[in-house]
């Protein structure tokens, strides 16, 4: 864990209010997909936690949605500027070997699933967004060799409805799942699966520090109190109290 300056080499919109930022710097501490970084921004007191969407030793890619002051500020940064980044944070996904892994992403929660899918190799991917213009990475996931299904709430692309509808409609068969997205989506997914299949879920929580010191992000899990930033953000389905 450290703070380091990364150089912005790309920062541009890839969907409605969604930006891709590519950073160059020493990223070799990142060891698992689903880990995140915490970004210091001028004019914001706290850092902003953003998942690592893709990484190698020399840099990382972030996908972020503009929702408030911090992400707005991020969207105004220019190529060549330096960013104060704390990393690597969190546990990330444990890449297990299963015959039919399913990857389910909702909204900007799709971001960290890219590096995961790269490592899984044989995944089926279901992406849920509100509308066609909110979708990103469909082609990138396909390029990884994954089978990709889309659900849009307004029916502008793929299945009309939620990710659970897309899974049913396409009769997707899976023996393990990985998911990241809004809480109601993850809840609906787990309710549909009804404990027949195990999986890992990535959580969000408002954070004070991002590195385990302040207890700002604690959730009550079956195994006890767990910090989303340090013990998570990824938790096993069996550990989650709904």
């Amino acid at each position, binding site marked *: *864990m*450290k*703070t380091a300056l990364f150089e912005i080499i790309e920062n541009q919109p890839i969907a409605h209010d969604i930006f891709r930022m590519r950073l160059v710097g020493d990223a070799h501490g990142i060891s698992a997909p689903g880990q995140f970084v915490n970004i*210091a921004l001028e004019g*914001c*007191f*706290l*850092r902003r936690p953003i998942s690592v969407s893709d990484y190698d030793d020399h840099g990382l890619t972030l996908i972020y949605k503009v929702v408030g002051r911090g992400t707005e500020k991020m969207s105004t940064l220019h190529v060549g500027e330096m960013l104060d980044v*704390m990393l690597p944070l969190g546990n990330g996904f444990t890449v297990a070997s299963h015959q039919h892994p399913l990857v389910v992403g909702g909204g900007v929660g799709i971001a960290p699933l890219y590096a995961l899918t790269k490592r899984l190799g044989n995944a089926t991917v279901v992406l849920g967004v509100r509308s066609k213009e909110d979708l990103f990475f469909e082609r990138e996931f396909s390029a990884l060799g994954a089978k990709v299904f889309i659900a849009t709430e307004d029916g502008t692309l793929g299945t009309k409805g939620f990710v659970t509808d897309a899974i049913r409609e396409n009769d997707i068969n899976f023996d393990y799942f990985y998911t990241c997205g809004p809480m109601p989506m993850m809840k609906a997914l787990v309710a549909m699966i009804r404990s027949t299949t195990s999986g890992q879920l990535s959580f969000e*929580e*408002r*954070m*004070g*520090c991002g*590195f*385990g*010191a*302040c*207890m*700002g*992000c*604690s*959730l*009550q899990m079956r195994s006890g*109190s767990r910090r989303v930033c*340090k013990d998570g953000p990824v938790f096993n389905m069996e550990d989650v109290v709904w």
Partner: protein
Amino acid sequence: MVDTRVSLAGVMLQNPIIPASGVYGFGGEFRDFYDPNILGAICLKGTTLEPRFGNPTPRIAECTAGMINSVGLQNPGVDAVIAHEIPALREFYHQPIIANISGFSVDEYRECCRRIDAHVDIIEVNVSCPNVHNGGMTFGTDAHCAAEVTKAVKSVTKKPVFIKLTPNVTDIVPIARACEDAGADGLTLVNTFLGMRIDIHRHRPVLANVMGGFSGPAIFPIALRMVYQVANEVHIPVMGCGGVRSASDVVEMMMAGATAVQIGAATLRDPILCKTIIEELPVLLNKLGYERCDNSLRLCRQ
């Protein structure tokens, strides 16, 4: 070279810089960033007799130049702190440790102190937590209650006892005096200010607990004012706390009358802040013409 050592009610610190309770956990989390042995002391997370999960999330709300927390004294309980946290810290850390204890009755404060007494160097008594009901801050907003807690804790320890006061009072001076009269060896000023934020999109408070404790750079002038008011009225040392984020803030706190200075919220954004300040403080004092970190810094009462 400037001598940065300070004596805190008889405990020698190599410098006056201390991470405040609640932002440093039990010491382990900052090890990646720097060796904690450079610190003056470490103040542990607030500890209660029984384990506490704390409040539901969201527990954190950002503010202009600060933050509100409603963690609610999450801790594993005093016995686990003694059995696991302090031994783990002592393995790599050899400077003084300050316990920060809290309770829901005078008896609980006393018992918590009695148990942790042998394992730490200084006891800081939090009578100022705004995030728990029927305890914490209610003891610190009343001079009589604060004095009762002070007496109870003093009766079970020979270690220096610092009472950490809340700024959420009309006049902090009588409460500070009551603690001194009840035998306190020092005071910590201040804990967080009761605050609140509202999420205008969701039409509800940001924090699950509605209100929480506001801290960070925004509160510095108020904390400084309270340190100044109190330090001139009592004869026991004061640890200044609230909004500090630079060596010059530390010097201001010491000029206001603080003997040592605690740093809270600012270390969450900048985890190496304490290290930076420890490096910059002697340089700044030297520039200002001071040779020591002592009373010579203090303003005369204007």
